[in-house]
Every structure is written in C-alpha cells, then in structure tokens.
C-alpha cells in the first residue's frame, strides 16, 4: 500500500510527468541557504552550470570561488575556507570529486573535521553518453569508509533541496549525490526529511526494497507492477547511507524474509553494502539481495537504454525481485 497521505506524496505519483533533474534541487537549496546564511561559500572546478552552482554564483559572486579544473586543489581550498568558520560547499562531477581528490577529502576535510559539504553531480550510469570514464559508480563506497563523513543520496528534486538545508544546519563533512538525469518529483514540501531516518513510502509483506536516488521512484513503479501479480513490496527511501538507519533495516528484516537494495552504484560498498553490514551482525530471519551495477564498468548510451540494459529501471527491478523471491523457502 502506498503511503501517499501519511508521507505527503503527490496523488498522481505513478502517472505524473513532472520530471526534473536532481541537480536543480541542489542548486535551489544552495540558493536558499546562501540567502539565509551569509557564511555559506561555494567553490567549483570549471563545472558551474552543470552542477547548478551558477545560480548561487550569480547571486553571491563575493562568496563564490572558481578553482579551475583542479579537484584536488578545490578540496583543499574548501577545507581552508571552512577552517575560517565558513560553511564551504564544493561542487563538481562525482567521477573526479571524490574520484580524484579522496586523499584531500580524507585528511584536509574529514580528519580536520572541516565544515565542508561535497556535492557531486553526474553520478551513475544515467550520465549516459559520456561513458564509463564519467559514470561514477564507486563514490559512495569511497566515502563511506571515512570517519566524520555523512552521505545523502536524495530521491527527487524536493528531497535534494531539503537535504542541502539539513546538511548546512549540521556541522561537519557531508556528501550529497545528485544525478543529471531527470526524475519525477513525487515528494512534497511536507514529506519528512531527517538525516539518518529512512522514509517508508510503501508497505508490503513479501519483500522490502531499500533504494536511494532515482532508484526510489523506479522501485515504487516496480512495486506497483509486482502488486498486480500478487507480490507486495515495501519501498523505502534510504536517502542517508551514512549513518545508515539500523532500526528501519532491522524492523523490516523482522517484517519480511527478503530485503532488496537498489542503487545506481556498484553492489560493493554502497547502500547494499551498508545494509549487509547491519544484517550480518543481528540474528534475523531475512536475507538481502543487492541490486546495482554488478562489478563491471559500463558504457556509453542513452540513459534510458542503459537503465534498461543494467536492469535498473522498473521492469528490471521487477525481474530482480521475482528472481530473488525464488531463493526464499
């Protein structure tokens, strides 16, 4: 059962055509916190329009620094700005930040516990035509291992906006991951958002799908299709991957026999990895099947074609869930 009322989701969730790029939510949120808080600074690495920080840059040029194509330098500079008591947002493409500057993030930002918010756009295979070099599928794994870091992967433009506000108001390093691909805006201003607390959008007894990013919407569509075949799946928006919502995972591990993770990321070290760690330390009757990119580099192609090929669209998730259910006695 969809929890439309309780979670303040839009009424026409499954038929809506209102698709917006997640990065727009980041750009909007950034503009709002920039307005409210004059300590917010922004740095970028020659990708201001693609990340939507140009909206902030136009409004607050005196609190904006264009670094050039130098992600390592950007991370260090962001740390320096933060160490002056500012809230520094650094924004670039995930493949290069954290892809290239992990050491700088580890030491200059996390070890010093600098108040830096890392925004990465262009994640996952939905980057599409640019191909494997630009499709960051390992960024969550890289950052999840770092002390002091929190990781948020919003599911739509509205949640992305809220996430920006939430990380601004919480001291310390944070990572927010938004894709370039458009996704239906199905949450509303009233939908709750709390760092570390997963949102349950749909109840179901047969399996619980934990998803993040644009896979949340695909999972909701998949659950609807499965329901028509008599399979009832819960769908959980696990927007915070670190700290992971232990209680929610254990609750569903008691309610169902099968947990499924769905993410636009390698199956190692991301959302699925985080859930596996929680499950492995508790005695529950449930098993976990991880879905995502199964240990491979991907390729160029239209985002939709790639999502289909790697079974990360609704149909692919339906298939994956049915297959996973076969392993339940």
């Amino acid at each position, binding site marked *: 059962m969809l929890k439309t009322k309780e979670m303040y989701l839009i009424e026409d969730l499954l038929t809506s055509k209102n698709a917006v790029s997640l990065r727009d939510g980041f750009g909007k949120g950034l503009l709002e916190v920039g307005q409210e808080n004059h300590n917010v600074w922004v740095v*970028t690495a*020659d990708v201001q329009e693609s990340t939507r920080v140009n909206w902030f840059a136009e409004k607050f040029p005196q609190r904006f620094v264009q*670094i*050039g*194509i130098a992600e390592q330098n950007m991370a260090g500079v962001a740390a320096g700005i933060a160490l002056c008591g500012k809230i520094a947002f650094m924004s670039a493409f995930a493949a290069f930040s954290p892809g290239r500057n992990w050491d700088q993030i580890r030491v200059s930002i996390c070890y010093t516990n600098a108040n830096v918010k890392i925004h990465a756009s262009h994640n996952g295979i939905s980057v599409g035509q640019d*191909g494997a070099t630009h499709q960051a599928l390992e960024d969550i794994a890289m950052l999840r291992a770092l002390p002091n870091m929190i990781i948020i992967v919003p599911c739509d433009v509205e949640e992305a906006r809220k996430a920006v506000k939430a990380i601004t108001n919480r001291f310390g390093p944070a990572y927010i991951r938004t894709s370039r691909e458009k996704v239906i805006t199905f949450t509303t201003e009233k939908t709750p958002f709390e760092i570390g607390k997963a949102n349950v959008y749909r109840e179901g007894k047969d399996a619980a799908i934990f998803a993040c990013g644009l896979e949340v919407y695909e999972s909701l569509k998949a659950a609807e299709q499965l329901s028509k075949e008599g399979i009832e799946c819960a769908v959980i928006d696990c927007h915070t991957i670190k700290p992971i919502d232990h209680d929610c995972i254990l609750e569903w591990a008691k309610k169902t026999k099968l947990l499924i993770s769905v993410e636009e990321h390698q199956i190692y070290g991301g959302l699925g990895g985080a859930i596996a760690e929680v499950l492995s330390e508790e005695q529950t009757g449930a098993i976990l099947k991880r879905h995502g990119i199964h240990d491979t580099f991907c390729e*160029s192609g239209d985002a939709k074609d790639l999502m289909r090929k790697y079974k990360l669209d609704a149909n692919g998730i339906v298939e994956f869930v049915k297959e996973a259910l076969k392993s339940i006695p």
Partner: protein
Amino acid sequence: MHKKITNIKQLKLIANTIRQDVIRMLLEAKSGHSAGSIGLADIFSALYFNVLYHDPKNPSWPDRDRLLLSNGHVAPVLYAAMANADYFPKEELMTLRKLGSRLQGHPHPGSLPGIENSGGPLGQGLSQAVGMAIVAKAERKRWRVYCAMSDGEHDEGQTWEAIMLANKYKLNNLTAIIDRNSIQMDGMTEDILPLEPFAEKYRAFGWRVIEVDGHNIAKFIEACEEAKAVYERPTVIIAHTIPGKGIPYMEYLSEWHGKTPSKEQADEAITLLEEERKRIEEE
C-alpha cells in the same frame, strides 16, 4: 605502414572531410563536444596522414608511433581521423556514443583497436605518455610518443607533475601537442585559471617549446619534424587554434565546448564547409 601524404592541399581536404564527419557524428549522437573537436581537425589530419608512423591494418604493430589522447572529450576528431585513415568503416562513425558502439564517449582501448589510452578525466594523459616514453627510451625503441592535450587540463596538478618527470628523464622521444584554443567549460582559460605566460612555464620546466598556428598544416608538420631533432629534451608544440574553426557561429565560443549542433546548424555548417572545400580545391 600507412603512406605519408606530403601534399598540403590534400591534407587540407582531409581536414575538411574530418570537420564534416565530426558535425554529422555530433548531430547524430546529440551529445558530445563540438568546439575542441572541430578546432583540431587540421592537426589530426596532419597527424594521421603525415606525422605518425602507423599501420591502420595492423593497429598493434609494435614499432608504431603512439598517439595518446589526454583530453578524451575530443574523441570525435580522433575517430573521424582514424576512420578516414581506414582503421574502421566510416559508417561506424554514426554509432558514436550509442549503446553497443565501439566509439565510446571517451576513448577506450578495449573497445576499439588503434586507441592507445583511456582519457576523459582531464590531466591523466601526459603521465601515461611519460610512462611509455620512459620505457621506449630505456629499450632504445625507434618509435615516438605523441600526447595530444588541451589547455584546460593544465589546471590539473597532475599535468605539471608529468611535465617535471619528462624533464627528469630527458624524454626527447616525447612530443606533447597542446590545443591552445583558450576556452574551457565555464569560459575563457585566462578568466577561469590563467595559464599565461604558458610557453615560459614549459621552458622553465626544461622543455623545448615550439609555438605554431594550429591551422597551418605545413608549419605544424615542420614543428613535429623539428621535435625529432631535439637533443635530450621533451618538446611541446603549443598549437594556437580557434575553437570551432571553419564554422563562424561556433568560433571562439566556450558555449560550444560541450554543445552539439541542431539540424539547421549542422546543415549550415556542412554548406559552409563545402564552400571551403571548393576554395581549397581551387588553390
């Protein structure tokens, strides 16, 4: 081995063909990088049809010169030059960036024979080229290493790390070719992160510097020849180019860095390039 073309007029006509191919590829792909690719057509014509010792029918010929592309986003010009040099059928150019294509958005050696390296994440290519040149020098190979790079990627620290190492090993078998088109993604290089005095920087780092007009094929070939005669030093050819050269609505504009032409714009470009072709033929 591929036969070298020395007739400049013929090389200009090939550059013109490459430009037309790039326009058609980008129109079909609906995504990709126009300005840099178009601006490099003359240099890639010179490289694949004159400068390089290579064999399109035997791409892994051990004694071939190695051309590495560091700014992988200009893949369209590389693919167009390779197809015209007969590495693969020209029809395949239209598969650029599509699912299942060997022509990945950014080049991948595992996908297409003749591709030497993976580039795209800017600033990685010169390090790879230096690695190759160190081995080639240690083993006294006759082949040279060429590294095509962009100006924008000199923002990356790694590029300068590689520049210093090339000096340390006195890599006279290495020629770096820089597309000095003065644009990058967010604007002009001198506004984003100033590079000038660019040539002086390279000189201070121990390199031989040759500056050429990147649209003057004869001068560019001459510079490549001159590099071979340099003793105990790597050479950089700073090729001054006009991004989008030959297509007036595109020229000099960073807005065209990562944009592709509409159908009308592509038609206009092809018409202009056809006129240019006639002018070259009448020369």
